[in-house]
């Protein structure tokens, strides 16, 4: 007879298992490496750069050489330093926007699912309105009226995530709430709050992790895009998106000022997307692509 007793058991942390499984899969490893590389660059640059990112050190659009590895930008600043320093704000903003968006969205979605009825309809109808705006248009709308403040951008992008996350989490929560094991606990007369925390939430970890990954990629894309349009960190502070925009005129002369930040954004986005996909596959079982689960739910809806 083993000494194990119910209350002193090892808890299997699902989110950790998912991450581990994703990290060891092929896509996950590639994704982590790509994204990790870019994060490293950004983190290093946040602490140290070879030269000042804002000082005018060289000729405008000076070509790269051994001393000036990436050349000069259109105003003569050191591209390498600007590239190193121009990423961490994007990362912080993207993570913040994702966390805000997913938490708010998940909360709304689960609330709508459990309360049901008119509250549910009202919440989801409200969400539908925001779905009518492409994310970047919504962000532009908000930013355009109040001003390109960074915290506002984070908020705007976060809000853009809410409808989609709410939809996904609501569907997942509804699905779980219908299961027999939840009903079994309801039949004991357990209070709704405890049912949500005890039975439903633990089963939502999986879809939540998947959404976090997908939304992170999207946050990066939108925030970088906004900064490209000029709604982000204001010059002279370096940001990758901004660098792409301002150095475009010098593409023929020193393309690196555009290519390197563009490549870094691309690698970051690709890396996070690959890893997010790996997490999703770890959640659903890896022999199918993620979209097939989506298609199957669509097909199930069609046969109702």
């Amino acid at each position, binding site marked *: 007879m083993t000494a194990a007793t119910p209350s002193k*058991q090892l808890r299997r942390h699902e989110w950790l298992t998912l991450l581990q499984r994703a990290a060891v899969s092929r896509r996950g490893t590639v994704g982590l490496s790509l994204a990790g590389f870019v994060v490293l660059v950004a983190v290093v640059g946040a602490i140290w750069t070879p030269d000042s990112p804002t000082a005018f050190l060289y000729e405008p659009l000076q070509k790269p050489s051994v001393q000036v590895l990436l050349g000069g930008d259109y105003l003569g600043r050191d591209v390498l330093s600007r590239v190193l320093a121009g990423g961490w704000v994007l990362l912080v903003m993207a993570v913040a926007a994702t966390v805000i968006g997913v938490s708010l969205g998940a909360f709304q979605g689960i609330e709508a699912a459990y309360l049901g009825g008119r509250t549910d309809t009202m919440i989801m109808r409200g969400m539908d309105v925001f779905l009518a705006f492409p994310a970047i248009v919504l962000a532009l709308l908000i930013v355009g009226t109040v001003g390109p403040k960074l915290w506002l951008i984070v908020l705007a992008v976060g809000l853009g995530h809410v409808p989609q996350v709410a939809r996904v989490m609501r569907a997942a929560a509804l699905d779980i709430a219908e299961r027999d094991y939840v009903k079994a606990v309801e*039949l004991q007369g357990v209070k709704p709050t405890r049912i949500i925390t005890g039975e439903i939430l633990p089963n939502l970890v999986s879809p939540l992790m998947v959404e976090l990954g997908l939304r992170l990629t999207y946050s990066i894309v939108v925030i970088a895009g906004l900064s490209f349009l000029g709604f982000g960190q204001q010059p002279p502070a370096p940001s990758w998106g901004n660098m792409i925009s301002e150095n475009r005129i010098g593409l023929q002369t020193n393309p690196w000022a555009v290519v390197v930040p563009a490549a870094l954004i691309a690698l970051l986005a690709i890396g996070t997307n690959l890893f997010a996909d790996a997490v999703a596959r770890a959640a659903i079982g890896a022999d199918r692509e993620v979209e097939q689960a989506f298609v199957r739910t669509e097909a199930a809806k069609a046969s109702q």
Partner: protein
Amino acid sequence: MTAPIRLQVQGLQVCLAGTKTDVVSEVDFEVAPGEVLGLVGESGSGKTTVALALLGYARRGLRITGGQVLVDGQEILGIPERELPALRGRQVAYVPQEPAAALNPVRRVGKQVAEVLRVHEGRGSQDGDVAGRVREVLSAVDLPTDPAFLRRFPHQLSGGQQQRIVIAMAFACRPGVIVFDEPTTGLDVTTQRHFLELIAELCATSGVAAVYVSHDLAVVGQVAKTVAVMYAGRIVELGPTAAVFETPRHPYTRLLMRAVPSLDKAEVMEGIEGLPPRPASRPAGCSFAARCPDVGPECLSHPPATVDISESHRVRCVRVRRDVHGAGGRPAVQLLNATEARAAVLEVKGLRASFGSNEVLHDIGFTLPEDTCVAVVGESGSGKTTLARCIIGMHTNWLGSIRYEGDELPHGARQRGKDVLKRIQYVFQDPYTALNPRKTVGQLVAQPIGHFYALSRAEVDARVVKVLENVSLSADFLNRYPDQLSGGERQRAAIARALAAEPDLLVCDEVSSALDVSVQATIIELLRRLQAEHRLAMLFITHNLALVRGIAQSVIVLSQGQVVEEGPVEEVFERPRDPYTIRLMSDAPRLSAAATGSGQTPTAPAGRAEEG
């Protein structure tokens, strides 16, 4: 003189794709024209794999790696892939398990039946010929042939009609062999009986050789002359149905027969402990050795050879005893007398339940005495599950009165007091969704204890261990998650969870229909023992009449939301009065009838059909 052989299978082997791990191996059998061979086995035995292989088809992840399948001498395996479509549907046809899924939802049914003709009869055939044959084949299965019916989509047909369409498709090109893969799953007993008669008739008149795959021994007994029993990918016994069922030689077959519930006698059902080995972990010796009561040292070292008992009966077992007669009787069940007067635990009067404005239960009334098990039987759609849900408080749209120990029960579980909720417990049908996948068995069972009792941690833990013991789950299961458990173990955990609250009334809703026969027997026996030990009142919902005998004292028969008959089990089963009950009892397939060779249904004529 050798009788003509239509289908010959030799050494069939199917492996996991890309490996040498076999899923099915050394499968040999023959079927003559007009004959039906039953292929029985529990889940994982490989019977569907064999069925599909007869058409040269293997599902994703599997590959046919060896053996021969000959139809009238024509090779099915071993021919190039691109020649197979010409044979499928034409020489060998397949009737699938779930017709609703097997029919293309966006094509009209007439077109789908015509398709098999167009594909095989070649471009030369006129439209008129095809249409004529379609009508012919549809009327042979008792389906309408008017254009309006042919223009329907599959979802516009009933389950029985869908099943007939797929049979029509199978017979359309006059194949030599038809493979039926569990075709009566989901059909109600009467439809199933008609279906079996239809198959027997069609096979006899057209001389088709049929292979009938099923897990239901009684059904196979109705329709098949020869039966092959599969276990862990091999045929362990093959012989005439009567012989195999009456005097099974292989230990597995014998145990299986002892697990099948009997409609006519209240007998103990004996389950088989343990699980069959998965393909990758099959032992070097006999796959059944771990669970076999007759196991000997030679069983563990190498796989058993086939032993011929008679000309047509062979067994894959080295310990076969030629002197055994019969499967052995089973002890009778000791159930408490139903007629003794007892206090009523549950009184239902004038219950009318509805879904929206649609009334599904009309004026139900019955009493459940203490210490008694009452079975509620009915076909799908009879309202038995709704009844259970009204009693337990999951379904709230009802009128009438349900009294528990004299007090009126509120409609929903939310309005009921904690005491009542504790004393009435429910066991769900599907063990695969009844347990929270994120909780361990220990946590699942501890939860109601913690909710209903104010006990210290240690006390709760002690109780959990005790309850698990009560359902024969060792303390090892405490830390296991549901996905690490088999179906039977999960259901036992679910029962433990219900018992942990120490109820007085247990409602069991089709608790064994998702389980194999051998596992079902264990669960039913467990419930019977628990009911007796804990003096529970039990409401046992099922569509399987035979189960009722082994566990219940009284029975209520529901049909379309009404009680048509009720009374002690013996009375109702042996002397039914209501026409519905009479029909139900006569349509239900019986193992004993098959064993004695006299079925209730007109089977194929004795002796083989003359032409091919």
